[in-house]
């Protein structure tokens, strides 16, 4: 049953990001000037990811709202795809709907599952949905209908989540806070360099993003956190030895592999607030969105610093952790 719920949320995630991507793309193709597109896309990102921290915290404090949050997300997204309300309002509704879904489902997945691959699977599908929508391969209406059906299923199968038995911090101490800061720094850094695209193969990199996130979770479950970040470092170094599309794909894959690791460990730092920690991680992607053009990080530095940060975070957490 848990696996079916995970699959449900994973597909739902795909449809939610697909709705937003498709609706924004529908606006963009009709817009003559580039500047409004930049503005509204930026505004969407700010709402969808910037509000997740607050939304997550609210849901952590009011877990009885989780079921209603699914409905609220669906309604907001449904209104958001209507061009008649104007793009400004559309962006607000789409961003809010996306935000609510992410912290709701993310919070539940963090609490229900102990492993990393489930988390990796859940977060992986968004990239594919977004790409399908942005490239107008699937319309917002179709995504919305699918999302509506999935929301009904999600509500019908909803159970109040309880935190599964995982290794957690004994308390939120100064070392644990420092550990969380290190993890969030890694997320910020990923926002500056974890991307990639190919004009020729539009679905290629979204699939790589998704695959990376899933593989990161699988590796972590198989070989452990410490060995996974070593593997990520080695693969990152290997990708720097060659030129062309294949090494870039490998590098992108390795950067995305860190996502389920950081997310799971962040939750473990403050297990009573899964929504908050999920939202914090999402919010830390924003600097990369807005400042990537002005501030670049050399890829060699990213590979090294990411490895060191993650290793340090792991060591600190292990010193402070106990089994729940």
């Amino acid at each position, binding site marked *: 049953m848990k696996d079916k719920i995970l699959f449900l949320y994973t597909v739902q995630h795909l449809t939610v990001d697909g709705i937003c991507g498709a609706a924004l793309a529908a606006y963009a193709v009709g817009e003559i000037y580039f500047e409004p597109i930049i503005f509204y896309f930026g505004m969407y990102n700010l709402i969808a990811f910037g509000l997740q921290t607050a939304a997550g915290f609210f849901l952590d404090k009011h877990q009885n709202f989780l079921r209603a949050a699914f409905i609220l997300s669906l309604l907001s997204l449904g209104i958001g795809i209507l061009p008649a309300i104007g793009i400004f309002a559309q962006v607000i509704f789409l961003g809010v709907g996306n935000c609510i879904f992410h912290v709701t489902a993310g919070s539940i997945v963090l609490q229900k599952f102990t492993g990393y691959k489930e988390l990796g699977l859940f977060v992986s599908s968004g990239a594919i949905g977004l790409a399908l929508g942005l490239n107008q391969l699937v319309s917002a209406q179709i995504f919305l209908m699918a999302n509506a059906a999935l929301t009904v299923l999600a509500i019908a199968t909803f159970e109040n989540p309880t935190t599964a038995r995982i290794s957690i911090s004994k308390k939120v101490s100064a070392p644990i806070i420092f550990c969380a800061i290190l993890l969030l720094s890694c997320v910020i850094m990923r926002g500056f360099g974890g991307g990639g695209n190919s004009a020729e193969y539009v679905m290629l990199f979204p699939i790589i993003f998704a695959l990376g996130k899933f593989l990161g979770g699988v590796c972590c479950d198989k070989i452990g956190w410490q060995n996974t970040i070593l593997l990520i470092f080695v693969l990152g170094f290997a*990708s720097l*030895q060659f030129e062309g599309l294949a*090494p870039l794909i490998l590098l992108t894959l390795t950067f995305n592999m860190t996502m389920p690791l950081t997310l799971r460990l962040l939750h473990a730092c403050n297990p009573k607030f899964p929504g908050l920690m999920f939202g914090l991680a999402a919010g830390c992607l924003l600097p990369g969105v807005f400042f990537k053009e002005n501030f670049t990080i050399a890829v060699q530095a990213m590979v090294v610093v990411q490895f060191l940060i993650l290793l340090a975070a792991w060591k600190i957490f292990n010193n402070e952790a106990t089994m729940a």
Partner: protein
Amino acid sequence: MIVEISSAPEVSGIFYWKNGDLMIYAAATILIEVPIFFLCGYRRAKDLILFAAVNLISNLLLNDFLSAVNSEWLTIYAVEIVVLALEFALCSYWIDGSRLKLLKTLILTNAVSFLSGVLFFLLN
């Protein structure tokens, strides 16, 4: 998922093997540091081979990074500290024994190779 405006495709690829200078610097560093590592008490062949591999990786990354940025002395010092941390982290995976001794050994090996490099560039 963050919505991004697509830009021109990016291509990576430092391709160390085509850069003879980078490989020479890496080889020189290994020739300097591995014997010192041996003299500091790490005698197992496995440890020496792993240390050489770690040095190769860190040296290639270091020199290629420095060739891509403005290599002022402050940057070089900062990067050397990061390299030290990287080598310590990687060596800690496989090399048994005191972590303090390992750290001191790595400080020594890196200091010697750094000063050797400075001397080499000053003389040339």
